[in-house]
């Protein structure tokens, strides 16, 4: 396997890990709010959170392209402080974050829902604040759901294609991920290199799903 193949695989893994690390705190916050609170508009929040699951990834990519492009207020603000997002590795991370977020948030939510609320009630009688209860009781008891969600999100991020190619392109050595690489290699007649990427993708996906299933087995 060529150094190029390894470099693409390494780049993809680093981007996916970064994406999950950045989205996990938000996923935990949203998962906790949805699992433990009722408020007006909750159904709307649930729908928005799940939207990237059902929206074609290319459409998500188009939205991101508009959001971070130079014509949008956000894009202009970022441009003013010298931050370029579109067609850089940052766009790869953002695309991965957005498409994997619903999977992570849903898994965190179900992990938290499985924690008996009476533990939280009891911790309150011992003087703990809601934040301390979350940190010391709820999250540790929901940890398997959180880790399983992170692995699932990581697997989804590894295979991300549609949103990535829209917002980050397929620039060799800069934004080319495993999925994007397979597509461009086939397009340019480099089938052998594409097979190398395919093999690495399969191995990574196998490892992640195996780890996730083992976690579920341990829980059961």
């Amino acid at each position, binding site marked *: 396997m060529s150094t190029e193949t390894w470099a693409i695989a390494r780049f993809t893994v680093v981007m996916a890990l970064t994406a999950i690390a950045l989205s996990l705190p938000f996923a935990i916050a949203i998962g906790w709010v949805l699992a433990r609170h009722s408020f007006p508009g909750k159904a709307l929040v649930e729908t928005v959170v799940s939207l990237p699951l059902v929206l074609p990834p290319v459409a998500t990519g188009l939205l991101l392209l508009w959001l971070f492009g130079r014509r949008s207020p956000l894009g202009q603000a970022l441009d003013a402080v010298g931050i370029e997002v579109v067609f850089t590795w940052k766009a790869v991370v953002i695309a991965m974050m957005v498409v994997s977020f619903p999977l992570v948030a849903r898994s965190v939510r179900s992990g938290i829902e499985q924690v*008996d609320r009476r533990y939280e009630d009891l911790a309150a009688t011992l003087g703990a604040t809601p934040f301390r209860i979350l940190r010391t009781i709820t999250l540790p008891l929901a940890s398997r759901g959180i880790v399983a969600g992170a692995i699932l999100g990581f697997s989804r991020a590894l295979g991300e294609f549609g949103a990535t190619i829209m917002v980050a392109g397929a620039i060799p050595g800069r934004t080319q991920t495993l999925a994007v690489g397979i597509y461009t290699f086939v397009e340019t007649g480099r089938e052998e290199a594409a097979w190398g990427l395919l093999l690495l993708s399969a191995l990574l996906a196998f490892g992640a799903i195996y780890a996730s299933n083992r976690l579920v087995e341990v829980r059961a």
Partner: protein
Amino acid sequence: MIALTIDVTLRQQAFELHVRETSAVEVLGVFGPSGSGKTTLLETIAGIRTPDTGEIRVGDRVLFFAAAGINLPARERHIGYVPQDALLFPNLDVAGNIDYGVRHRHHSLAGVLPLRSTLIEILDLGPLLERRVQKLSGGEKQRVAIARALMTQPAVLLLDEPLAAVDRARRDRILPYILRIRRDLHVPLVYVTHDEAELNSIADRVIHLEAGRVVGRSAAP
């Protein structure tokens, strides 16, 4: 001595709890069959459930007073609660459970080390401290849960059927621990059970609950 004023009404689906009781005793017993509202009453005092109307006072402290919009959150009530199944935190060992409340209220263990030693001695917890809570017997779990609640120096300790998860032989071994809490620490207790005989050995006054209402009161012999 406990000066406890409870005058609450709480409705949930088909069930209505309506209790009006003022006691000034060291141990208030609450006796009644399953489903009579005993646990609901304790959870209401602890601040886990909110009554629809009424008031709850411990001594001079108002914990709940619907007419004035006062409803102290559970964490500010200083009420120790030991549920029937102990509910030890499964992610912490015995010592972690015992110290849980202290780490919040006092920020360090130093100020309560004498109390901690006393509790470990009274409840015979020394050999258990490093153990995982999953490995404890029903009676051991109860003792740890009692120590965890008492470490926060509560104004009242609520015990929900502390002997229910324990067989006959072990009951006779745990009851003396509870009597020592009363005798040595002078913490007022609200002691809930469906076994009237238990109350004879511990309570000063007993209220009898049925279907959410007080149907009888007695001073224990």
